[in-house]
């Protein structure tokens, strides 16, 4: 197995703690039961973009599992895994964006949002319902309605929160080639 750098281990730990705090205390209820509008996916997408797919996936997995643990309603593995998959998929945006070089711009934001919307659709429209069918065999239409609400609301919050975070983070980085020789 590939060795993790110390920085990614810490990023996973702190990221999962952030994911937990946001998911547990900043949840805004949505009209469909058992489904919250959750700002933590904006954070997850952002962390995945900064640190890559492995960190993104593990932050989603650990953070979501801890949330379920603390509520004590059992671990909803299907949704925990869907969160992890979202982290991995969003992490593939790392190469497309150059956040560390302090650049994001319009094309970067469009790319970021394109990737996050597609990843949300895959996770909540495909991964979560399919796993729910395998585990609980609940009716299809119910799962897809839940998945759709979760996916759309998560994509909207990610678009707002995630984009803002990317812009704010890029602004703190020194731009590549910002020094000029006199």
């Amino acid at each position, binding site marked *: 197995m590939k060795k993790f750098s110390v920085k990614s281990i810490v990023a996973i730990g702190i990221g999962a703690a952030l994911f937990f705090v946001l998911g547990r*205390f900043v949840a805004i209820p949505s009209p469909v039961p058992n489904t919250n509008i959750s700002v933590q996916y904006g954070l997850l997408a952002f962390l995945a973009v900064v640190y890559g797919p492995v960190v993104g996936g593990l932050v989603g997995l650990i953070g979501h599992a801890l949330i379920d643990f603390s509520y004590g*309603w059992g671990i909803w593995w299907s949704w925990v895994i869907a969160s992890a998959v979202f982290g991995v998929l969003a992490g593939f945006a790392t190469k497309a964006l150059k956040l560390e070089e302090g650049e994001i711009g319009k094309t970067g934001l469009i790319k970021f949002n394109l990737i996050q919307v597609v990843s949300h659709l895959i996770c909540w429209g495909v991964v979560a319902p399919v796993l729910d069918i395998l585990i609980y065999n609940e009716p299809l239409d119910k799962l897809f309605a839940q998945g759709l609400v979760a996916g759309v609301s998560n994509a909207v919050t990610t678009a707002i929160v995630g984009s803002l975070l990317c812009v704010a983070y890029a602004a703190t980085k020194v731009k590549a080639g910002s020094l000029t020789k006199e």
Partner: protein
Amino acid sequence: MINLFNYIDRLSPIHRLTGASKLVCLVAWSIAAMTSFYTPLLVALTIASFALFRLARLRVKDISFMLGMMVVYILMNNLLIFLFSPGHGAQIYGTQTVLFKIAGPYTVTAEQLFYHLNVILKNACTVPIVLLFVCTTNPSEFAASLNRIGVSYRISYAVALALRYIPDIQREYHDIALAQQARGTEMSSKASLVHRLKAASAILIPLILSSMERIETISNAMELRGFGKKDKRSWYSARKFSAMDFLAMGVCILLVLVSLGLTMANGSRYYNPFI
């Protein structure tokens, strides 16, 4: 700071088990309950999980809040299933025994009620076990347990870090939220949804940027101390397995085999009383 993970320190046989064996049992128990729809097995698991709860000397008072939330959750979930698909039970069990009609497609059938019973049982037999695990395992032993059951210590350490920093980040979130409210940021239900999302970002940006700095500081400190240079590490809170640990793990792994065996012998995941 409130105790989020609700660890309740008592003397009981369940508390004496090591975290690692409880984790193995939790995973095995959930697999057994997730894969099967065999009603007698689910009933047995539910009864057993409540019996274990007694054994751990936990009182209903300790967990009344979580229990209440769980009941609401299960009820909402079942209501939603019925609203979307009142004929799901008939579809699974292949027969249709109409009990009474409500309106339109909403006919109550014995099969549908039986399917709901199964869904409730599936929740009822895993939720007490998760609660049991959360209430009887010391969070600081959790990371050591993960490492014991074969998760790489680097990832286990990430989990330990998350548990360690949750209270800190919670406090920081609270501080920033108060500071932003003093500046007039509206977070309550008086503001519209979009407005609240924007307000949430006003808190998130300072919180996350300061966390990014925290990541740098902690990883530098760990690197200085040589973290990750060796293939193994020891844990302060790790304990040795006792005979009870092996017994508990053995029983839970047997449960998985029974659950899978019943599915094979039965020819399907469902126990069908209607044929």
